[in-house]
């Protein structure tokens, strides 16, 4: 049983059938098997949040989930959210607020920020900081990131940033 196991899942709306080793984590499966390299691998023990993806609608750490655990699951990565336009305004705000910096943490930041905005249409800065507290920015660009998320909140509510 250390042999490959068959998994079938949906990734960004596309049905995927694959054979994976049990030890393969979801982040490596997305990156190396499917070529979806937007999901970044940082610490590989759940601290940094660079690998954040959505599984069945909830954000999770892709490095702390085995690919075999996603059998029958509905996985969404930054490529999916980007292609669908779901986070286009967040991405534009990150750009205009200089919240991108090196960009390594950005996909995870966007996934986490969009998760917050889906649950709470009017978070304050403290709530934004708290929800993003599981995502490390090694450039320490947090202030600009919070600015960008806050600007998106206001724009989505039809208010001036």
């Amino acid at each position: 049983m250390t042999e490959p196991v068959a998994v079938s899942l949906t990734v960004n709306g596309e049905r995927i059938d694959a054979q994976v080793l049990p030890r393969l984590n979801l982040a490596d499966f997305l990156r190396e098997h499917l070529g979806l390299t937007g999901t970044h691998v940082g610490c590989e023990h759940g601290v940094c949040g660079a690998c954040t993806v959505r599984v069945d609608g909830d954000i999770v750490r892709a490095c702390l989930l085995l690919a075999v655990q996603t059998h029958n699951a509905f996985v969404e990565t930054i490529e999916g959210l980007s292609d669908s336009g779901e986070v286009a305004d967040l991405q534009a705000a990150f750009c205009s607020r200089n919240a991108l910096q090196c960009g390594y943490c950005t996909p995870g930041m966007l996934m986490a920020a969009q998760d917050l905005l889906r649950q709470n249409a009017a978070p304050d800065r403290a709530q934004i900081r708290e929800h993003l507290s599981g995502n490390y920015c090694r450039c320490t660009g947090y202030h600009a990131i919070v600015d960008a998320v806050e600007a998106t909140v206001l724009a989505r509510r039809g208010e001036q940033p």
Partner: protein
Amino acid sequence: MKASAFSYIRPTTIDDALALLAQHGEQAKVLSGGQSLMPALNLRLSAPAWLVDIGGLSDLRTIAVSGGLLRIGALARHVDVLKSAEVAEHAPLLADAMVHVAHPAIRNKGTMGGNLAHADPASEMPACMIALDAIIVVRSRAGERRLQACDFFIGIYETALAAEELLVAVEIPVAKQNSVRFFHEYARRKGDYAIVGLAASATLDGGSFADLRLGFFAVGDRPLLATASRHLIGRPVTAAMLAEAQAALEAELDPQEDQQAPVAMRKHLARQLLALCVATLLGRADLEARRSA
């Protein structure tokens, strides 16, 4: 780093899971949410031959109240506990504590049973369980055992759970009308493990404690039900009584030094937390001033 190779099996019934644990014993690890197990595998601190993934055992996901007990199934995720109306009404201490457990993406996978079975001495939920006088329900092919939370945690990452047993639920006496609770922890970053934390549950009789259960965590090899509370029960708390309780607490603490904090700092923070807890629960700002004493 990457996990070493293992075999993976996903039982579909509790009986199948128990049979697998009986068959593989110490060679197997139970995979629940995996939020502590996966880091251990990735860092190769753990290298089991088998992973028994209980994620499909949906019977273990229920949160329900019956007969004066709040029963939380082992597979209830942290986010389920955080958002549960039953928890908010009958064990609000857990909801208070849960916002300090890691981060949203981790709370979406981490489970109550996995957290308790992992028994990290700096973790919030084990301390809540001893403060709430919970029962841990474990099952094997031989039957079910019910353990007091205080007897369940026996060391660093060590519990009374045998290799062939599965933690299936916790049962918590529902909060009485006159009960109050306190939760606070000091951590470097919100969501990181605490340097020192306190989960407390009390019943009030006028301005005094009729009962006070202090569950300290990250100050020893397991959560500690501090006996120092006996100095504070049954009569109006004075500054002298609080100082006595703080001294008694310090005497029973045995924290370890690590890269987070030296022993003296942990003891100091524990004393501070005790004063903050007592002052908060009794609504006595005069006692909180004792924190600087």
